[in-house]
């Protein structure tokens, strides 16, 4: 083996090690933040927090996620911020879960949404990890899709059409699935090197899939 080939092999090996480290740290932090969110959700349910808290927590976590997290993601403070963001989202979702649990088939709907979210995430992540395919070609589709979904959501705040919210939830599940493939692919291919930002992206995709599944299953399995 000549010197150049040896150097290339060494760089590829190092890069692979670096990628594995980012992936491992991302999954570890993701597990920790999901666990923390679950604890916060149970706490909110035990405290009987009103449903309106969901919106307040969501806005607060979005402000932190947009303005604070990117600035602190390269330091230790980023870890504190991501736990704060995910804790707020978990605390906000607590009253929503309480609302679903009070329905006739509530416990089954919540359990199915949880299991479904876990299956979708694990399946997509496993596929992206095994194939090592570059899914960034879906970026334009996801970006346009998300903008269409946001406009539809704004319109539906005023129109309140149940069929539209069903379509929006279905579209969110599809778009978040694309994002999981893209984000996992980016970590595997070395496109994402910051595990805190990678965790934030994957956490949001999982959170959105869970909320959307809960809504869809609530509509079809509800006792209305």
């Amino acid at each position, binding site marked *: 083996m000549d010197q150049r080939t040896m150097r290339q092999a060494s760089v590829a090996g190092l890069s692979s090690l670096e990628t594995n480290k980012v992936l491992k740290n991302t999954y570890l932090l993701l597990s920790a933040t999901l666990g923390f969110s679950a604890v916060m959700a149970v706490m909110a349910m035990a405290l009987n927090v009103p449903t309106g808290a969901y919106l307040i927590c969501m806005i607060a976590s979005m402000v932190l996620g947009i303005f604070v997290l990117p600035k602190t993601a390269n330091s230790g403070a980023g870890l504190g911020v991501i736990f704060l963001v995910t804790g707020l989202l978990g605390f906000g979702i607590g009253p929503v879960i309480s609302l679903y649990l009070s329905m006739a088939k509530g416990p089954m709907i919540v359990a199915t949404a949880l299991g479904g979210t876990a299956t979708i995430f694990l399946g997509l992540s496993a596929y992206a990890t095994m194939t090592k395919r570059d*899914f960034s070609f*879906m970026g*334009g589709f996801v*970006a346009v899709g998300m903008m269409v979904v*946001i406009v539809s959501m*704004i319109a539906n*705040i005023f129109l309140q059409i149940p069929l539209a919210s069903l379509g929006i939830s279905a579209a969110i599940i*599809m778009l978040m699935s694309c994002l999981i493939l893209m984000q996992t692919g980016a970590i595997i291919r070395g496109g994402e090197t910051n595990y805190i930002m990678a965790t934030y992206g994957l956490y949001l995709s999982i959170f959105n899939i869970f909320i959307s599944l809960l809504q869809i299953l609530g509509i079809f399995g509800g006792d209305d």
Partner: protein
Amino acid sequence: MEWMQIGALIAMGLMAFAMWPMVKRWRENPVEAQEGDWSTAVFILGLVALFVLMLIWSVQ
């Protein structure tokens, strides 16, 4: 529930604000799909859709 609508609007506005740099980046540097990329993606998304339908069927 007017304040809820205002809150939802703020949340949507923030979401659009957060999405905008990503939209801009993908518009400026689009990544071309290679042969077979889209068919694979459609197949995977089809599986996700089937799985969601199965979940709906299980709660009915």
